[in-house]
């Protein structure tokens, strides 16, 4: 174990002990119950933050710094460049760089925009070009996951390097990563950092994520939970296909059981309703027994394709009999009352049936034919081919708008391993304006929360305890928007109204809080090892409306099936006119309120209405909030790196 890791562990233990000590005292001794409406939210927010700290400490506990693979690079490789609407020239620049990757491979442009211009450019550069096949018509497209899944069935390399359209790869990217797969046949994924070249030192939009693509990924890697981040990663085809097959089997099992249960109910109801028509009643009852038998067969492990094939044949035969029967009866009845749509053919002397009119009769809700037809339609779902999807097999997860996290978690659940390789091997473009950046962050957060709600890592089979915590930790951090609201409101309420959320700003308070706070900062400092993390800290508070919106919209999406509109991040630096004030009104409102509270607080002390210590604590607190939120003001006026490059030198 390195000396650095030992130090991190000591600090981690200390910060957790001090934190638990402080929070316990806060819960038991220092809540101001008279102002419970702010006191309780504050202690809940503080407890949230302590849990966040514990999860962070757990992440860093086993930080793994890899030295590179031991084996030589080997295997066949397809390089995928996924694009939707990025400028053709940008995609081609990436594609040409991909073609120059030194290790033998094939390069493919996966054009979800299906653009003739893109196809022509790919062809003239001698690159592969893939668009969605005809199977996808009128089916859910599943965004980038769908684009990659489609390409998986058009190519055959053992490994896939996935690149976003703006990520220019280093010629050695495959040489540096493929060896991991040979080192360990259970490795499914090697992720490398995302690094942005269109970002200056100040990075006002906080695009670089040096803490994530560094200590955090290395920490997760230590628990065999390095995340897949959608680009700059190499994946093992076999692992993805296996995921697809297992997912297919699970889906077929579920949908078959569901369909059979529904069919059983429907047939039972129809049988009861048609007791007056003995033939129909009998037929429906027999069919129902067949369905019951099929369900039993499946639970006794008989292969589903067999059972459903047999059942379908029986139902087809029965409904043919029923339809014939019904037709005859109906035809007779109708003939008897000499009404259309049946006519007697004058020459042949037989009945001629007007099919269209009969169809219309049959679809009427209460006709027995309708019952049979709806059963038949229900049984279409028994074709074991996922008729509602373009591909029965979907290797990359489609349960979330961020396919990467969901896919990696499923791979981990099946026992595959992942690697984080800490070396920049592709350089890309970050969003260049505030609106685009906000949309991107919102999408990431929404995707994460979708996975949290649909496939919760704490309940997921196959994950180790450490893996559960690593996935849960990231999801937990996206709940911070609610805590931020409280951290903004509490000092404003104190400074303007003099209402204390704690019993007193006493020695007892500081003696517990300050050591915890300082130790927390120290751990962070050691972990970051000189990386500048202030930008990230600012945004984690300043984007509170984004985090809250992500939580509420994903909840509405998963629970109430309300659609999330999927946004593709734009990276070509074009920005809309005007200042994006509407997008950040909550932050601007918070800034105004904090400043007002600050002034009122000072005035209250001056006129003798305010408490000195309390005001000092809260003005420092307000100062921190303002320092964090100030990044939003910078970001509003940020025009992208191009604007700075165009400024003539020497002009002030």
């Amino acid at each position, binding site marked *: 174990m390195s000396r650095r890791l030992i130090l991190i562990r000591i600090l981690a233990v200390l910060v957790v002990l001090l934190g638990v000590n402080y929070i316990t005292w806060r819960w038991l001794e220092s809540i101001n119950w008279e102002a419970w409406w702010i006191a309780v939210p504050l202690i809940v927010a503080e407890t949230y933050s302590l849990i966040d700290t514990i999860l962070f400490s757990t992440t860093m506990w086993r930080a793994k710094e890899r030295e590179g693979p031991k084996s030589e690079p080997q295997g066949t490789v397809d390089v995928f460049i996924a694009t939707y609407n990025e400028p053709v020239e940008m995609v081609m620049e990436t594609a040409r760089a991909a073609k120059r990757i030194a290790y033998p491979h094939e390069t493919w442009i996966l054009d979800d925009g299906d653009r003739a211009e893109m196809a022509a450019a790919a062809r003239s550069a001698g690159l592969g070009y893939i668009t969605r096949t005809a199977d996808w018509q009128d089916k859910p497209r599943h965004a980038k996951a769908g684009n990659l899944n489609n390409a998986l069935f058009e190519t055959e390399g053992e490994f896939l390097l996935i690149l976003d359209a703006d990520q220019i790869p280093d010629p050695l990217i495959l040489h540096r990563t493929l060896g991991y797969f040979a080192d360990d046949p259970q490795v499914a994924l090697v992720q490398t950092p995302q690094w942005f070249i269109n970002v200056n030192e100040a990075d006002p939009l906080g695009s670089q994520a040096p803490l994530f693509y560094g200590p955090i990924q290395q920490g997760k890697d230590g628990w065999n939970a390095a995340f897949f981040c959608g680009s700059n990663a190499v994946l093992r085809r076999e692992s993805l296909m296996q995921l697809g*097959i297992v997912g297919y*089997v699970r889906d077929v099992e579920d949908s078959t059981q569901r369909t059979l249960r529904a069919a059983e109910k429907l047939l039972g109801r129809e049988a009861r309703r048609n007791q007056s028509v003995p033939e129909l009643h009998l037929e429906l009852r027999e069919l129902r027994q067949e369905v019951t038998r099929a369900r039993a067969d499946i639970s006794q492990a008989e292969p589903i394709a067999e059972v459903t*094939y047999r059942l379908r044949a029986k139902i087809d035969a029965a409904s043919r009999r029923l339809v014939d029967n019904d037709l005859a009866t109906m035809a007779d009845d109708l003939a008897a009352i000499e009404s259309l749509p049946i006519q007697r053919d004058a020459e042949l002397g037989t009945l001629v049936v007007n099919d269209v009119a009969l169809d219309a009769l049959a679809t009427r809700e209460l006709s027995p034919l309708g019952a049979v037809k709806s059963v038949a339609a229900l049984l279409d779902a028994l074709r074991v081919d996922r008729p509602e999807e373009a591909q029965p097999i979907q290797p990359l997860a489609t349960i979330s708008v961020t396919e990467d996290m969901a896919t990696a978690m499923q791979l981990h659940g099946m026992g595959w391993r992942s690697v984080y390789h800490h070396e920049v091997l592709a350089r890309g473009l970050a969003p260049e304006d505030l609106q685009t950046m906000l949309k991107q962050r919102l999408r990431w957060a929404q995707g994460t929360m979708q996975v949290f709600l649909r496939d919760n890592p704490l309940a997921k089979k196959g994950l180790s305890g450490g893996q559960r915590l690593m996935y849960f930790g990231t999801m937990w951090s996206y709940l911070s928007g609610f805590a931020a609201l409280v951290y903004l409101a509490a000092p404003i309420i104190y400074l303007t109204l003099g209402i204390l959320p704690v019993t007193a700003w006493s020695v007892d308070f500081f003696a517990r809080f300050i050591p915890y706070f300082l130790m927390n900062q120290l751990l962070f400092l050691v972990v970051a090892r000189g990386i500048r993390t202030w930008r990230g800290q600012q945004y984690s508070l300043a984007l509170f409306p984004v985090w809250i919106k992500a939580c509420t919209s994903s909840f509405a999406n998963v629970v109430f099936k309300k659609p999330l509109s999927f946004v593709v991040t734009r990276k070509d630096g074009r920005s809309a006119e005007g200042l994006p004030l509407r997008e950040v009104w909550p932050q601007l409102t918070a800034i105004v309120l904090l400043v007002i509270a600050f002034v009122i607080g000072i005035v209250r002390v001056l006129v003798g209405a305010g408490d000195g210590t309390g005001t000092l604590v809260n003005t420092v607190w307000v100062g921190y909030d303002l320092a964090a939120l100030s990044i939003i003001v910078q970001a509003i006026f940020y025009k992208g790196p191009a604007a700075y490059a165009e400024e003539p030198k020497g002009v002030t």
Partner: protein
Amino acid sequence: MKLTVTTHEGYAAVRPVGRLTASGAPRLKQEVQKLIESGQPRIVVDLAETEFIDSSGLGALIGGLKAARVAEGDLRLASATEPVKSVLKLTSLDRVLKDYPTAEAAFGNE
């Protein structure tokens, strides 16, 4: 991988010889498609000489099953070798597809 196709009374048999992996999977899919288009959607994939199958190979089987069922036929497996059986079990695809003892038996009862 070699692929032989034979037609029989009431079904056609496709026999992959060797390793059915990502490189052979598209060919298997094409052969199945061809049979369906020629009016024979009752297909047995005879695995007697398939030494190994990977998930891409299984993917081709599922793709074929879908195509056959849409055409109101079926795709069935026969005489899987031990390594193939273990992959079917590992991916739990044996919950969906049955492995018949012989190609003749696959559609034998109909």
